[in-house]
């Protein structure tokens, strides 16, 4: 490798990769859809968790400035940590929280709600996980913040923690 340019290129390449990974780590689970154009939340029809009635998002996404669609499951441990913040959100803001119960057993999910409380306005059932894929989820837990026009304002991959909780509150205050 006598070529000087090759050496410089290799070093620059690795520095570049380092920063890519660095930012990949920093930003990976919180990103806005602003850059890639506004996305409308798909209008799916699912079964209601409690009544088992066919329910579409058109019917339940009404009368609020903001909605939070949260994909959760009783077997998912991070969902337990997240639940406190959802309860807080319900108390402290006017956001309407809609749950999508992902690949879960009804008994377990009910136990989960009994134990940790139910912050959800509606819960829809996604027992085979297909709806979550159509929405564009990567895993559980995951949350989407929608505005009045049912556009996705923010997508949160992974559990909502203290920091993300504040971000969520901020979004609502800013745009109100």
């Amino acid at each position, binding site marked *: 490798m006598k070529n000087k340019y090759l050496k410089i290129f290799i070093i620059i390449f690795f520095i570049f990769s380092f920063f890519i990974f660095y930012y990949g780590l920093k930003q990976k689970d919180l990103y806005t859809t602003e850059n890639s154009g506004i996305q409308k939340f798909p209008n799916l029809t699912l079964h209601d968790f409690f009544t088992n009635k066919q329910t579409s998002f058109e019917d339940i996404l009404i009368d609020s400035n903001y909605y939070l669609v949260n994909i959760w499951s009783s077997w998912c*441990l991070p969902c337990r940590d997240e639940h406190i913040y959802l309860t807080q959100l319900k108390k402290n803001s006017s956001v309407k929280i809609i749950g999508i119960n992902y690949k879960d057993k009804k008994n377990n999910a009910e136990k989960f709600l009994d134990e940790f409380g139910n912050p959800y306005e509606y819960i829809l059932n996604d027992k085979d996980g297909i709806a979550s894929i159509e929405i564009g989820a*990567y895993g559980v*837990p995951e949350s989407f913040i929608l505005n009045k026009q049912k556009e996705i304002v923010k997508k949160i991959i992974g559990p909502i923690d203290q920091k993300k909780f504040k971000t969520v509150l901020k979004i609502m205050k800013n745009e109100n």
Partner: protein
Amino acid sequence: MILNYIGNFALFFCLILSSIIFFTSISSLNNKNSFFKRNLNELLFFKFFFTFLSFFSLVILFINSEFSNETVLNNSHISKPLFYKISGTWGNHEGSLLLWLLILTFCAFFYFLKSKNRPLDERLLTVMFQELIIIGFLFFLLKASNPFNIIFPVPNEGMGLNPILQDPLLAIHPPILYLGYVSTSIVFSSSLAGLMRGNINNFWAKHIKSWVYISWTFLTLGILLGSIWAYYELGWGGFWFWDPVENISLMPWLSLTALLHCILVLEKRSILHSWTVILSIITFTLGICGTFLVRSGILNSIHTFANDPERGLYILFFLFFLIFLSILIYFIYEDKFETNNKNLNFYSKDFSIILNNWFVMYFLSVILIGTIYPIFLEVLSNEKISVGPPFFNKLIIPFLIPFLIFMSIGPNLKWIKNNKLSNKLNLIFIFILSIVITIFVYRFYSSVALNITILLAVSFYLFFVTIKDFAKKNYKNYSQMFSHFGFSLLVLSILMNSIFSNEVTSNMQVGDEIKFLDKNIKLQRLENTKEANFLKLIAHFKIEDKDKIELLFKPEIRIYDKPETITSEAAIKTDIFRDRFLVINLVKENDYLNVRYQEKPFMIWIWISAIFISLGGIINIFKKNEK
């Protein structure tokens, strides 16, 4: 409780010992008179001993179910069988890192013991690099993932080990895989040391060869075990999914395979010095890179998220520290390579090895790009994509064809130069034979794509050529023959498997019957039983084929309570021609079962061929010891 402190302090002691060894090796380099090697040997042993003590304390904590320890609390519970209490030690992030460190310190100790015929300064430099790696991991362990965090007040019961990890295969999979990964660190350190001292030559190759064989063999076995586990336990009905985690384990294997061949050429011909060093660096850094990608959670796969960004950041810095260190050393010392202008002849073993090394590097880059490109794209453009099997199949399969041809012909050529191919007729005859067989297969099953058909022909070619080599009378290179034979068998069985697989999926209730090909599948009854740590639902199936031969299948669904998880245990009947695979799933809120029945030809041969491949490595390790 006391064991928590013992384990923790043993680790601190290791850190101190490591620093002492690091500085001792540097000072002895400058002033060789001050060196007495007995001392260093003992220090290395003590460090190994203290890591062992720490690891042992963690094992005892797991056995006693002491939930004062955070790692035990999160990954164990009282009613778990003893075997899984022990294997649970390395079934989690913290414990597995401790195991990693244990093997790392053992390798350092063992290397110094076994390298007495090498120049002292090379050994010292190797130990120095090794200590650098060990110190890096010790810091990581103590700072970001300490396995001895104490919880107070002590909880009564733990959270339990993830049931899909409660499998005998997965208990031995990590240690074996780690042995493979970690021993590449010795190759890495030693090649850097050799580079700095201008020692990279055929003698060095001969010395480091056994380490390459050891790590290659363990890595092969480790990947095999992981793949078998995915097949039997996950119940997905396959053995390889091009999942990021799988790709990450395959990449070091590929570069290690290339390195193994390079070392052989270096030993015989004294060429490919730079190839060897670069591949040693790539292999080890890819291993660390894999740790980074898996443990930091930067890769997206459909699993629950629970990562610590601090961990990812730490490994990232460590990884790039090692990369820049090795690049720097390489650029500074590359002039020290022995220069030679040996010509390469097209008809020689060396040439086909180099050619195939380029192919391996190509496969490696395809997998690397397929795995990390989504990360790059996401950071640069906020777009999320996932790269799946079609990408890898399209880019890899066509290039496997020339690769397999060179792999068949190469070993039949001589080193340096071959003016006339001695057994040319044989090779041509076998080539015609494999084409005939392929045409036969093609006519029998004509919906196969063209590139697959050609691939089938060349893998038959390699298969027959290696069989012919077994019958050769004069000198035999058994390890090469076994590994190459195994590889041809692997490609063949994977191809057959993908061409001839059949499956049916249906929802069934007790008493239902479905038809599949010429068979009748009947769900006879359901049975509930209770085991030590889970509830079991067994479904009894009867499958009857056209000759009225009956087979009973008993797939299970297991419901674990800590943590509450449902797993499916597939019922698999294996014979030498095919696997019959039946798996059931619960359909929630319904009283029927989802049933999937698959017939997968030559499944067992995939495992057997991988065993053949690693057998080649094992033979070489023992051959070395005999001398």
